C-alpha cells in the first residue's frame, strides 16, 4: 500500500502559521519538535515531516480500509538519508513502518510512502488541473487498458479506487495537489 502528499511551501506559508502557539504540539512528537527547534530550516522540516505523515496516513488508511481519522502526532518520522533536496526515511504508526521518499522541486515538497519497500512504483509530478486525466492516462498505459473505460471513485471511507467500467480494481495508488503542482503514485 502506498500514499503520497504535496506541499507547496509558499502556499503553506499563506495558509498556516506553524509558529502559532501549540501548533507543533498538535502535530509532532516530542522528538520531531526537538529536531524542528534545532533545525537551521525549521519551516522546511515542519512541512517535510507533515507531508511524510500525510503520505503514511494515506497508505495506512488504504491498508486497513479504515474510516478517516486525524491524529498526525501518532505518525513518527525519521529521516535516514538527506542529499540536497532528496530525502529517504521512515514513518512509524502503531505497529507499522512506512518507507518514505521526498523531494523538493520548485519550492514544493513531494513525498510518498510505501508499506513494502520493494514494491515498484510510478511517481509523476503534473500540473494540478491535469492531475486526474494524467493519472488515468498513466494507469491505462501501465495496465494496457483503454483510457476511456477507466474512472476513479471514492469508497465509503473516501479512499479512491480505479474502476474499469463497473469493476473495482485493487491497484494501489494515491494522488495529491497543493497550489499549481500535483503528483500521483501508482504501484506497478
Amino acid at each position, binding site marked *: 500500500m502506498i500514499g503520497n502528499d504535496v506541499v507547496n511551501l509558499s502556499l*503553506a506559508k499563506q*495558509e*498556516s502559521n506553524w509558529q*502559532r*502557539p*501549540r*501548533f507543533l504540539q*498538535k*502535530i509532532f512528537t516530542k522528538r520531531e519538535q526537538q529536531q524542528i527547534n534545532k533545525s537551521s530550516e525549521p519551516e522546511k522540516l515542519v512541512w517535510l515531516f*507533515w507531508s511524510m505523515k*500525510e503520505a503514511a496516513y494515506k497508505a495506512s488508511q488504504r491498508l486497513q480500509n479504515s474510516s*478517516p*481519522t*486525524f*491524529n498526525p*502526532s*501518532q505518525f513518527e518520522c525519521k529521516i535516514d538519508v538527506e542529499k540536497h533536496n532528496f530525502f529517504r526515511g521512515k514513518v512509524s504508526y502503531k505497529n507499522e513502518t512506512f518507507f518514505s521518499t521526498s523531494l523538493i522541486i520548485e519550492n514544493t515538497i513531494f513525498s510518498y510512502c510505501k508499506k513494502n519497500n520493494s514494491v515498484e512504483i510510478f511517481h509523476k509530478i503534473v500540473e494540478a488541473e491535469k492531475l486526474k486525466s494524467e493519472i488515468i492516462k498513466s494507469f491505462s498505459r501501465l495496465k494496457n487498458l483503454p483510457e476511456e473505460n477507466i474512472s476513479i471513485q471514492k469508497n465509503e471511507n*473516501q479512499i479512491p479506487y480505479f474502476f474499469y467500467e463497473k469493476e473495482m480494481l485493487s491497484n494501489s495508488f494515491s494522488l495529491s495537489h*497543493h497550489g499549481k503542482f500535483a503528483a500521483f503514485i501508482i504501484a506497478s
Partner: protein
Amino acid sequence: MNEKEIINSIKKIVKPYVQREEGLQNFTEETRFINDLEINSANLVDVILDVEDEFDIEIDNDSMEGMLSVGDAKQIIEKKLAEK
C-alpha cells in the same frame, strides 16, 4: 451554552479556512470539515486550536483524532465543558 450556540460558534471558527463556500450554506452536525467544507488538513489544526481558545478547553491529540465533522466537534466540546 446550548447545542445551537456551540454549532454557531463552530461555524464562525471554521469560516476562514473553508475552501468550499457552498458547504457553509447547509451547515449541520453531519457537515464534514475536509470532505464537505474542503478545509485543508493542516488548517484542521487551526480549527482545533481556535476551538480550544474559544471555549477555554484543551483537546488532547486522542480526542482530536475523531474530530472530523461538526457533530464530532460539538460532542467533544460538550464533554470538555462538562469536565471543567
